[in-house]
């Protein structure tokens, strides 16, 4: 009973955050950021249905997203030219159905095997569709893409979806519903068997389930939700290009899900939020943001194999045992020099990038051409790096003692 209560509270909290966010940050920029996040959340969650829950590594998930997006703009165009007339509120559903249809077809042959074969088929189909989209100009609009206008549909309670904030509430509603359904899916027999097949497809067959059919179901569901995300994308930007279904988008969603943490339901949500934030914030300040993103990604893969969600969950025991406070100091001791190290590296990268200008940091003019600047920075970087390495063992020890559980006595002999 208590469990159900906490769960409902989490969902209510999620809804509240979705609804209240624009109350606190209401600039156009913030709202457009929230829209991107909303789309990314649905997309990343749908991706995790494949990889995290079903064990299918896909390099072509943008196919369903993009097809949904293209269908959605075409639906907008049909509304605009009065071929059909319905509220744009339903467009994400339509886009989802297109994603589902595509997944029904593609999954019928690609889910036979997981592993490399599946990954390669998904890659091939992704490339195939991306290349074809440039050929079939009348539907995909070639390099230029297709654009529509979301304001021609019948208004819903007087809302004409003219402004970003109106789209945000529409997206928020869809995000909430989609998240809820994707979560519920994990709690059904099909969802649980997807985990089982991920872990051990052979054994799943000996308890009555065809691994292929189990994968197929997850695959179709995942295509459906990716399509919804694509539909939201089209509504938000009113403009869809080949990029929405090519390898760049497929790669981005993999990144989000992985950085967030594949093993946890909220992992992809975290990943979507973090990456969208980084994308838009960093790209405002520096040309090198893609480089930083690449570095962040590699560092995550190397040092946080379970993603950010996994990192948070690493502290569950310490939290439950009320020992989390013992970790604060060791963390600070490592984090501060690590931050200094990273900041210095960033500074050096930036300095070398904007040759013969100078950057002012903390009221100091750093000139890229003076060797003393470089020497100083190198010195700071190496010292902070050394300090970080020195404090690491202490942190590890603190973590281990905080997370230690006395194993209950049990006959293990």
């Amino acid at each position, binding site marked *: 009973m208590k469990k159900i209560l906490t769960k409902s509270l989490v969902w209510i909290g999620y809804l509240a955050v979705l609804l209240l966010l624009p109350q606190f940050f209401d600039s156009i920029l913030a709202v457009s950021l929230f829209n991107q996040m909303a789309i990314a959340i649905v997309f990343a969650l749908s991706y995790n249905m494949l990889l995290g829950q079903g064990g299918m590594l896909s390099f072509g998930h943008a196919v369903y997203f993009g097809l949904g997006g293209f269908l959605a703009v075409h639906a907008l165009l049909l509304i605009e030219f009065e071929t059909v007339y319905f509220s744009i509120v339903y467009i994400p559903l339509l886009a989802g159905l297109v994603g589902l249809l595509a997944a029904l077809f593609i999954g019928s042959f690609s889910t036979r095997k997981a592993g490399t074969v599946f990954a390669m088929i998904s890659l091939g189909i992704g490339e195939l569709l991306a290349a074809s989209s440039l050929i079939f100009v009348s539907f995909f609009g070639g390099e230029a893409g297709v654009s529509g206008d979301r304001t021609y549909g019948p208004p819903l309670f007087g809302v004409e979806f003219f402004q970003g904030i109106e789209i945000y509430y529409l997206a928020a509603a869809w995000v909430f519903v989609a998240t809820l359904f994707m979560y519920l899916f994990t709690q059904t027999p099909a969802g649980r068997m997807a985990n089982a097949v991920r872990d051990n497809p052979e054994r799943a067959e000996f308890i009555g389930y065809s691994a292929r059919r189990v994968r197929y179901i997850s695959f179709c569901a995942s295509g459906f939700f990716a399509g919804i995300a694509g539909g939201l994308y089209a509504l938000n930007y009113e403009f869809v290009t080949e990029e929405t279904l090519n390898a760049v988008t497929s790669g981005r969603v993999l990144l989000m899900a992985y950085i967030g943490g594949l093993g946890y339901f909220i992992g992809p949500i975290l990943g979507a939020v973090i990456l969208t934030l980084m994308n838009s914030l960093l790209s405002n300040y520096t040309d090198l943001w893609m*480089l930083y993103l690449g570095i962040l990604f590699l560092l995550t893969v190397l040092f946080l194999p379970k993603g950010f969600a996994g990192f948070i969950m690493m502290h569950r025991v310490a939290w439950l045992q009320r020992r989390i406070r013992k970790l604060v100091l060791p963390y600070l001791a490592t984090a501060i020099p690590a931050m200094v190290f990273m900041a210095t590296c960033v500074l050096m990268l930036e300095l070398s990038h904007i040759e013969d200008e100078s950057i002012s940091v903390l009221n100091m003019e750093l000139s890229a051409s003076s060797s003393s600047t470089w020497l100083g920075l190198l010195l700071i970087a190496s010292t902070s790096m050394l300090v970080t390495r020195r404090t690491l063992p202490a942190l590890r020890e603190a973590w281990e003692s905080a997370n230690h559980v006395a194993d209950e006595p049990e006959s293990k002999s």
Partner: protein
Amino acid sequence: MFEVLVFATLNGLVTGLLLFMLASGLTLIFSMMGVLNFAHASFYMLGAYFAYSISLYLGFWPGLLIAPLLVGLLGALIERYGLRRVHQHGHVAELVFTFGLAFLIDEAVQFFWGPDTKNYQSPDVLDFPLFTLFGQEFSAYRGFMIGISVLIFIGLYRLLTRSRVGIIIQAAITHPHTVANLGHNVPLIFMAVFGVGSALAGVAGVIAGPVLTTFPGMATVLGSIVFVIVVIGGLGSLAGALIASLLIGLLQSYAIASNLGVADLLNLFGLEFSRDHLLTDLWTLTLPQIAPILPYLLLILVLIFRPTGLLGNREQ
């Protein structure tokens, strides 16, 4: 018609052999470590860029030697300090790691060399037509590319089948545990193979750079095609990789050279369709247009009907 065929064949051969240089390294790495290295084409790009920078100071020929060595060294280091670390987290982590690496290398190349195309030139010595056929010239540099590729294939083949190291590598491909139990240092072999594979990609980059232009997108252009080849040829099979490389090279080259289209096909059956129709794009489709998607079509068909690839015997 005939001259088109001859030139398409020659061009297909050049592309095919170039692809093989990439694919051979990739398939070696894959069959030993079970990792499909997404960053393989990025090493190819690095080869071109390194060679370009070297050529600015020392000319083309030293670059041909030094650049692949540098790339190989980098590859070995990445294996040692990156890949080996993620290995313990499973195959997905490894794949994702190489995927991120490809992304990072792309960005790093732009950081160091900028986003524009580099004027990386073939050496003057080879700047003459090797022969002229039907009034068309076939440049000596292309001949040189064919020569190098064939040499590498022969060298690699002999190394793998004749030398002690090669035999250990072959054994490690199919039975890594047995080889480890025999007392060979498998991690070291892995590192070496990764290094050599990357170096091969580097060579390909060095010699392809002047022809296919040296620009930050050059890895993306070839990246997935090389994957396709390795899978079609059969994972772990060098001969399969060679056949698939040539197949893809020729297929694309013929498709580009021909100007057949769906319209011609329909005309053959006496059908004709009006131009302005929803499916216009379908009727006006021509072979050169679909050349870029042919490899992927082939990939999907192979994976569906013969998941082990043409010559492979391992299903992953």
